[in-house]
C-alpha cells in the first residue's frame, strides 16, 4: 500500500533497502548510521525481510563480507559513516575493480580528529577516487528514492559499479518528516532481479580479485573509468524512469537546477544544505536579485557537461564545500573550477559546516553577498 507518513530518515532508508530485497547484510553499526542496521535487523528478526544479517567485528569485515556476498552473485547492502568508511578504505577500490554493483549507505559524518560525531562530507569525499558512484540527497524522500534508484543504476550491465548513497548524518538520518513509502510490487518491478553473469560457482569456476601485472592493471582502471562515463547516461535514464513510475524525480539525475533560467549568480551545493538555500533564494528573488542554485546530486561521476551548460552564462558561481582538501581548498570547488576552465564564469569557494557547524540562512546569504560583490571566498564559520 502506498503510504505517506512521518518517520525518521534512518527508518525510511531501511525501508527502501528492505523493498529492494537484499540477501546479505553485513553490518557494523556506527553513529549516525546505526539506526539503519538496527531497523534492518528488526525486519530480519520479524520475518519481513528474508536476508542473512552478519554481525561482523569491524567495518573492514563489513565491506569484505559485502564483497564476498557479491562474489557469490547476490544483492546485498551495508551502511557506515566517518571512521567506519575510512576503515573500509582498503577494500573500497577492490569492490569497484571487481565491478560488483554493491549499494552502501553513508550517513555523512566528520572524520576524526578531533573526534566528532557530527556531520560534514569529509568521509565520502575522501573516497571519491575509488570507482564508486556517489549520489547525495537533500531530504529523506530523496534518500529513500535514491537507494531504490541506486540498485537499478549499479546493476545496469554497462555500469556494474558500486554506489554510495550519501545523506547528511543526524540532519537527515535523525530527522522526522513525511515520506512516501512505495508498494513492494512497484519497487520490485522497477528494480528487477539481480542476475549477474559472473559469480563464484563450483560448476563453472572463475577467478575474482586476481593479481594484475603491469600489462593488465592499467586496463582494469580504464574499464572502471569507461563504466563511470556510462553511468553518467544511466543515472539520467534511471531518474527519468523513476519519475515516470513514481511521479518524482531529481533534476536530470546528476544535477538539479533551482531558479537558474535567468540567474546571474548561483551557489553549487551537495546534500541537505540545498533545502535551507532554497529559502534564501526565495527571499533574495523577492528582493529582485537574480540568484539560483545548482544541486549537485552526483559527485561521482562528475557531471562536467551538465555543469558547463548550467553555469556558463553566470557572472559568478559560489561553491559551498562541507569538506576541505587540507593544503588546498574544497574538493567540489577545485573540480567545478576545472570543469569551467574554458568559461568566463567567476568561481568562488566557501568552506562551511565542518564537524557539524550549522549552515544557516545567514551564512548562505553571506556567500551570495560575497559572490555578487565579486569578493574572495571565505570560511563560513
Amino acid at each position, binding site marked *: 500500500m502506498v503510504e505517506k507518513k*512521518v518517520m525518521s530518515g534512518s527508518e525510511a532508508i531501511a525501508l527502501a533497502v528492505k523493498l529492494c530485497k537484499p540477501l546479505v547484510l553485513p553490518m557494523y553499526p556506527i553513529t549516525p548510521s546505526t539506526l539503519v542496521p538496527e531497523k534492518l535487523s528488526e525486519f530480519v528478526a520479524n520475518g519481513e525481510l528474508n536476508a542473512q544479517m552478519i554481525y561482523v567485528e569491524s567495518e573492514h569485515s563489513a565491506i569484505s563480507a559485502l564483497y564476498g556476498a557479491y562474489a557469490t552473485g547476490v544483492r546485498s547492502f551495508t551502511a557506515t559513516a566517518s571512521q567506519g568508511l575510512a576503515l573500509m578504505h582498503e577494500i573500497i577500490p577492490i569492490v569497484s575493480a571487481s565491478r560488483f554493483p554493491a549499494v552502501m549507505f553513508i550517513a555523512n559524518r566528520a572524520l576524526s580528529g578531533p573526534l566528532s560525531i*557530527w556531520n560534514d562530507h569529509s568521509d565520502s569525499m575522501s573516497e571519491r577516487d575509488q570507482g564508486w558512484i556517489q549520489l547525495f540527497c537533500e531530504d529523506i524522500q530523496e534518500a529513500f528514492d535514491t537507494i531504490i534508484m541506486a540498485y537499478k543504476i549499479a546493476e545496469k550491465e554497462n555500469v556494474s559499479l558500486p554506489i554510495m548513497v550519501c545523506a547528511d548524518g543526524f540532519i537527515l538520518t535523525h530527522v522526522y518528516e513525511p515520506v512516501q513509502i512505495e508498494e513492494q510490487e512497484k519497487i520490485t518491478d522497477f528494480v528487477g532481479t539481480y542476475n549477474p553473469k559472473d559469480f563464484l560457482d563450483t560448476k563453472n569456476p572463475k577467478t575474482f580479485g586476481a593479481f594484475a601485472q603491469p600489462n593488465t592493471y592499467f586496463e582494469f582502471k580504464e574499464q572502471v573509468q569507461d563504466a563511470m562515463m556510462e553511468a553518467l547516461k544511466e543515472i539520467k535514464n534511471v531518474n527519468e524512469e523513476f519519475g515516470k513510475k513514481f511521479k518524482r524525480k531529481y533534476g536530470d539525475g546528476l544535477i538539479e537546477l533551482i531558479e537558474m533560467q535567468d540567474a546571474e549568480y548561483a551557489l553549487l551545493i551537495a546534500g*541537505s544544505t540545498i533545502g535551507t538555500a532554497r529559502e534564501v533564494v526565495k527571499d533574495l528573488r523577492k528582493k529582485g536579485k537574480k540568484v539560483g542554485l545548482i544541486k549537485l546530486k552526483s559527485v561521482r561521476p562528475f557531471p562536467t557537461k551538465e555543469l558547463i551548460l548550467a553555469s556558463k552564462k553566470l557572472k559568478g558561481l559560489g561553491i559551498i564545500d562541507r569538506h576541505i582538501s587540507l593544503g588546498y581548498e574544497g574538493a567540489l570547488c577545485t573540480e567545478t573550477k576545472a570543469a569551467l576552465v574554458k568559461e568566463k564564469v567567476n568561481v568562488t569557494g566557501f568552506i562551511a559546516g565542518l564537524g557539524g557547524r550549522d549552515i544557516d540562512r545567514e551564512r548562505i546569504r553571506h556567500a551570495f553577498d560575497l559572490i555578487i560583490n565579486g569578493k574572495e571566498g571565505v570560511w563560513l564559520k
Partner: protein
Amino acid sequence: MKQIIFLGRGGQGAVTSSQVLAISAFIDGKQSQAFPNFGVERTGAPVRSYCRIDDKKINLREQLKEADYALILDPTLTKNLNEKITSLIIVNSNKKPVDLGLQTNAKVICIDITKVAMEKIGKPFVNISALGAFAALTNEITLESLEKAVLQQMGAKGSIVEKNIEAVREVYKISKNDLQK
C-alpha cells in the same frame, strides 16, 4: 511556519515528544519536521529537541534560534531556555509562572504534568502527556491526531500506551480549564 522547542533531561523523552508532535501535525494535514539537537545523549543532561509545522513543504535545515513555542518538561531547566520565544512557554511545574524567573515577553503557563503522570501512569513520564497541554493551549494540533500519533509512535509498547493516552486526555482537560481561568 510554527517552530517549537522542547527542553527536557536525557531520559525524559523530549526527542520523542517532538517526533510525536510532528506525526500529529502531519495527521492533521500539515507538513512537519522534528529533529533533536544532535549530540551525545547522557541521562539527566539537558536535552533540546525541535519541531517545525507548516502548510507547505519544509525545506529549512538550520537549527532554531527562536521559536513560537517552548515546552519545558523539567522546571529546573527554565534557565536553559536561551532562545527567544514569541508566543507561549509551557512549563511542567506546580509553581506559578511569576515564580519561575523566566525573562520573556511570551506568555507563560504552568501545568503540573508530573502530577497527572503519577496518577495515570504511576511514573513521572511526562513527555507524551505534555503534548496534551500543547494541543489544548495552542490549537496547533487536535487531540484526535495526537492520540493517533501516540499510537503510531508507541504502538508496540503495550499497556503503557493506553496509560499515556489517558494522561494526554487529562492534561488536555486541565489545560483547557486553565485557559478559562
